[in-house]
């Protein structure tokens, strides 16, 4: 019982210890003070973050919430009483078909990213976790796409997808699949998928390094022990790697959801939301309301609805995986 050793002051003020110690009135009061002190000390760790957060996030958030119930164009001198419209913005969004379509597009990109991008990231991370040659080299290379500017990515992929001079069509032609040749980005059936693939390609590096960091924290001995017991590599993966990696999977998938739902620079550079409304995503819609239509309040309301949807998505995802972990 290490914690009962005398002379360890810090142990005594640990709030969790209180019920283990004989209760007398004096001691109780002392404990209370000590606990408050300990809480204060604990809180002081989080304090700088909470302070910065309150000033630079919560305050603007409240303002944005205020604006979301106004019909304001972003230029007129703002006065709440004059522009207040109640929840008309929200009501209008609920009936805005294009907005919900853009939401579905983002969800589609997210689904592709969650499966394709994360599968790729995991496969690569597993490969680089093994003792293979030149793994340091690959480790560096796979981080290039996230670092690259969207301008370059957009230019290159547009060239790949181009209808006349594109690399993809060229390859299809050579493989005798010339009936598949078309302009990939202006065809409504393929545009969104093409954008999603580029997004996944650009983003898998993040999943890769986080998963790799997670894999690296799994003790080697566990693998060795499993091997000694005669487990196949699939069994090792299934029974050792996956259970230990669940928190990291949750982290990566939440990051993927956030990254994919909020994609827009790539869309701007590749399709501009077109053809028609086929590659519009929530962020492009929000910017359209804000900049093109000067409907600032509406844009804020869109942002809040979008945020709420993301919030529900991410928290459900987190809860589900916590359940899975317990099973």
């Amino acid at each position, binding site marked *: 019982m290490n914690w009962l050793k005398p002379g360890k002051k810090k142990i005594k003020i640990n709030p969790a210890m209180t019920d283990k110690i004989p209760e007398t009135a004096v001691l109780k009061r002392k404990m209370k003070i000590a606990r408050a002190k300990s809480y204060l000390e604990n809180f002081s*760790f989080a304090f700088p973050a909470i302070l910065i*957060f309150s000033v630079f996030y919560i305050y*603007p958030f409240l303002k944005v919430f205020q604006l979301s119930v106004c019909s304001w164009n972003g230029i007129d001198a703002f006065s709440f009483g004059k522009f207040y419209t109640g929840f008309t913005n929200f009501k209008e969004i609920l009936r805005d078909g294009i907005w919900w379509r853009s939401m579905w597009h983002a969800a589609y990109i997210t689904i592709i990213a969650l499966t394709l991008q994360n599968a790729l990231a995991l496969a690569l991370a597993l490969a680089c976790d*093994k003792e293979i040659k030149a793994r340091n080299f690959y480790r*560096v290379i796979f981080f290039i796409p996230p670092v690259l500017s969207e301008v370059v990515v957009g230019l290159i992929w547009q060239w790949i997808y181009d209808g006349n001079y594109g690399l993809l069509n060229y390859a299809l032609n050579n493989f005798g699949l010339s009936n598949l040749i078309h302009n990939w980005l202006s065809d409504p059936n393929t545009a969104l998928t093409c954008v999603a693939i580029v997004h996944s*390609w650009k983003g898998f590096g993040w999943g890769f390094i986080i998963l790799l960091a997670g894999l690296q924290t799994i003790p080697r001995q566990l693998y060795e022990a499993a091997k000694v017991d005669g487990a196949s590599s699939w069994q090792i993966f299934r029974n050792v790697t996956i259970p230990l990696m669940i928190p990291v999977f949750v982290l990566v998938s939440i*990051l993927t959801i*956030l990254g994919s739902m909020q994609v827009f620079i790539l869309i701007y550079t590749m399709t501009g939301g077109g053809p028609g409304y086929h590659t519009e995503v929530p962020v492009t819609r929000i910017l359209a309301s804000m900049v093109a239509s000067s409907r600032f309040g509406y844009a804020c309301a*869109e942002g809040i609805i979008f945020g709420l949807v*993301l919030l529900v998505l991410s928290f459900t995802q987190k809860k589900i995986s916590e359940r899975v972990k317990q099973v």
Partner: protein
Amino acid sequence: MRDGRTYRIKRRAKGFIIYIFLSIIALTCIFPLVWMFSSSLKTQSTIFSNMSIIPDQPQWKNYYIAWTKGGFGIYFLNSLFYTAVVVFGIVIVSSWAAYSFSRLKFPGSILAFNMFLAAMMIPLPGSFVPLYVLVNNIRKVLMVFLNNSNPFLLKFLSQASVDQLFAFTEQQLYPRVAYIFCMINVGLSLSIYILKTFFDKMPSELEDAARIDGCSKLGIWWNVALPLSRPAIAVIVIFNTLNVWNEYILAQLILSEKSTMPLQRGLMVFQGVYVTQYPLLMAGLTMTVIPILIVYLILQKYIIKGMTAGAVVG
């Protein structure tokens, strides 16, 4: 005997497939970088007409032109400054907070953590107006305060140097500090979340041992938690470095003077509303990518080195 051979062949084949797979993916990753570099050595007229990777007449002077025309000197220093301070700040502040949320309970700590989590998810498209107004109001208050302290300052300094001090504070110091805090806020939620995930995974035995040895909470954070979470810290450093390095929307909102702007502002010179000077842009982009890759090269070792530390985790 036969079994051993098929096993070896199977293993070889498996290894071969892995290499092919890795190499294909690696190729798609390297190609844009190579293309960017080779484009930076072409001219505006050959960049899209001559598709060869090795330019006929490499225009090395593009780098010089891009550097001088984009005014990269001061922007580069500014970006280095912002990135270093912001990333340093984020690592300290977020690891304190994450450590506290993970280990040191206080009333409302779960609520606070969930608030950070929620903030990560709710994008604030319209927040730039309140943010700008806020930063501006703080500036006004600060300047009033400075003006009130004028008589006091005059005891030590001449009028001219006091004026200079005020101008410096208003135009240089304050916008930079405000920008740094905004950027710390941008990276905070995500970093706290990543770090907390890793802290939660860490066994608390070492911390208990340290506590028994009489280590204070701050000491435990510094001596145990931080070294143990090095892979996670490496991840957030990379993440935030990239984020700050490439940021320009907030920078343009909060910073007004050209001399305080970060690197991305220099790149804008080549992407006009009507004309994009592709070779110069590519040269500029190549120059901006290099520091990031260097940071990554240094830090990726820590992700791997975490191996030894990570052996405890699990």
